């Protein structure tokens, strides 16, 4: 029934539990690898769910992120289409995505991120201290998962500790297409932009060891630098791309491990599994949010189906990550799975720039909690966990724990 589901499925698909995959995934992969879906805006798109197809489209240069093209499907009712085509994305792409990325990658190399690790451990310990002090039950998503990635990004940008909370609020508002209205989102974006502009002026006068200070004077191979608008957009992009994603993943990872407590116990017994366990949590995440939309610029063929120019495709990395053809026992969470070429960070030249940092944050949270709170457990039955409302990034509203 390739592409022949006559009535388009409503997308995003819904699932029973907060940690369960939508029932349709398996059937779509099997029988309808290119499925018609209707997005919240009412526009139609094609949904891909097989590993090979998703991987191919994510890295194919004919499938772009030009979702502002006239005939591209809009994602949601909100005018701007949210973070997928916010003004800041436009500002960045005007700088040339590859050029911009080249100037930033050196801040995200494995070596750099390893150097950040002791700082990340200290921040995590401090957050866990504060959580322990206020007693249980505690919402570990709010206490640890949500603040840690903001703290890390603030550090990277040279933002003082005292402004971390404002950063967290801006980030929360810019990503919440459903919880806040467009006027509030625009206001947060403007306030955040003004803060970053002032912050840049300060760094210009008194440069530090941070990413923005270095980008102020950095040039690409042709000797060109980034404009102020592009630098502000870079700060915004890093917060938007690196906060809510990582915060939610921390929550979901812990929920997956604690909801079947023998998984947690296995890690307590053998903490050397942390690295593979983090990868498996990324793969197993059944609630990652929207997936990655792409705009087809030239006809392509996927799963023996022609996708004509002008099609909007939605790549479900999470559905691909459960593809039995790539992952044996795909519906089992296997803490020592290796190799684990999951697509949680995308694939190809656009794949997540911050993935080493994200991995390090996830590993650190796990290491610190295993060391400090080996008796950690859920404070509510897993069935009572609820998904966040937002459209873009999936997560749990809260994660009550005790120890």
């Amino acid at each position, binding site marked *: 029934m390739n592409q022949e589901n006559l009535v388009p499925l409503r997308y995003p698909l819904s699932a029973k539990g907060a940690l369960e995959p939508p029932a349709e995934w398996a059937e779509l992969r099997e029988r309808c690898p290119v499925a018609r879906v209707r997005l919240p805006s009412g526009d139609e798109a094609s949904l891909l769910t097989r590993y090979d197809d998703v991987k191919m489209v994510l*890295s194919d240069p004919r499938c772009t992120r030009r979702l502002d093209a006239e005939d591209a499907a809009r994602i949601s009712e909100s005018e701007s289409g949210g973070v997928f085509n916010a003004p800041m994305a436009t500002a960045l792409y005007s700088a040339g995505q590859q050029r911009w990325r080249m100037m930033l990658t*050196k801040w995200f*190399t*494995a070596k750099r991120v390893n150097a950040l690790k002791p700082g990340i451990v200290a921040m995590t310990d401090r957050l866990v201290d504060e959580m322990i002090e206020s007693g249980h039950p505690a919402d570990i998503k709010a206490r640890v998962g949500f603040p840690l990635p903001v703290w890390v990004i603030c550090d990277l940008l040279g933002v003082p500790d005292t402004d971390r909370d404002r950063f967290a609020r801006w980030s929360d508002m810019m990503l919440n297409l459903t919880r806040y209205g467009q006027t509030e989102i625009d206001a947060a974006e403007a306030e955040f932009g003004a803060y970053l502009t002032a912050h840049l002026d300060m760094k210009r006068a008194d440069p530090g060891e941070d990413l923005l200070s270095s980008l102020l004077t950095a040039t690409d191979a042709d000797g060109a630098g980034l404009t102020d608008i592009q630098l502000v957009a870079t700060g915004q992009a890093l917060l938007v791309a690196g906060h809510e994603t990582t915060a939610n993943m921390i929550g979901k990872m812990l929920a997956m491990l604690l909801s079947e407590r023998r998984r947690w116990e296995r890690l307590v017994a053998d903490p050397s599994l942390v690295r593979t366990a983090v990868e498996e949590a990324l793969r197993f995440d059944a609630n990652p949010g929207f997936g990655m939309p792409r705009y087809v610029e030239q006809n392509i063929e996927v799963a023996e189906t022609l996708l004509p120019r002008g099609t909007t495709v939605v790549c479900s990395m999470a559905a691909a990550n459960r593809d039995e053809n790539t992952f044996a026992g795909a519906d089992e969470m296997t803490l020592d799975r*290796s190799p*684990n070429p999951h697509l949680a960070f995308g*694939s190809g*030249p656009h794949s997540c720039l911050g*993935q*080493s940092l994200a991995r390090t944050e996830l590993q650190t949270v796990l290491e610190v909690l295993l060391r400090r709170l080996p008796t950690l457990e859920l404070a509510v039955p897993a069935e009572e966990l609820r998904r966040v409302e937002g459209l873009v990034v999936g997560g749990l509203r809260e994660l009550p724990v005790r120890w």
Partner: protein
Amino acid sequence: MKVILDQDKCVASGQCVMAAPEVFDQRDEDGVAILLNDSPSEAGTEDVQHAASVCPALAIRLSA
């Protein structure tokens, strides 16, 4: 085992360095991967296979 790295494909994700730090590093200027050792020992085989499988750019090939 021989390791072949295609630097033109590399997207500087650093995953190979995380997986097999004895075999891969990244250039400071642009994060593009470099090979420290193109014929790693038996003991390093598993790490290198892991690196090749997690490379998002499929830039690492292994041959016997």
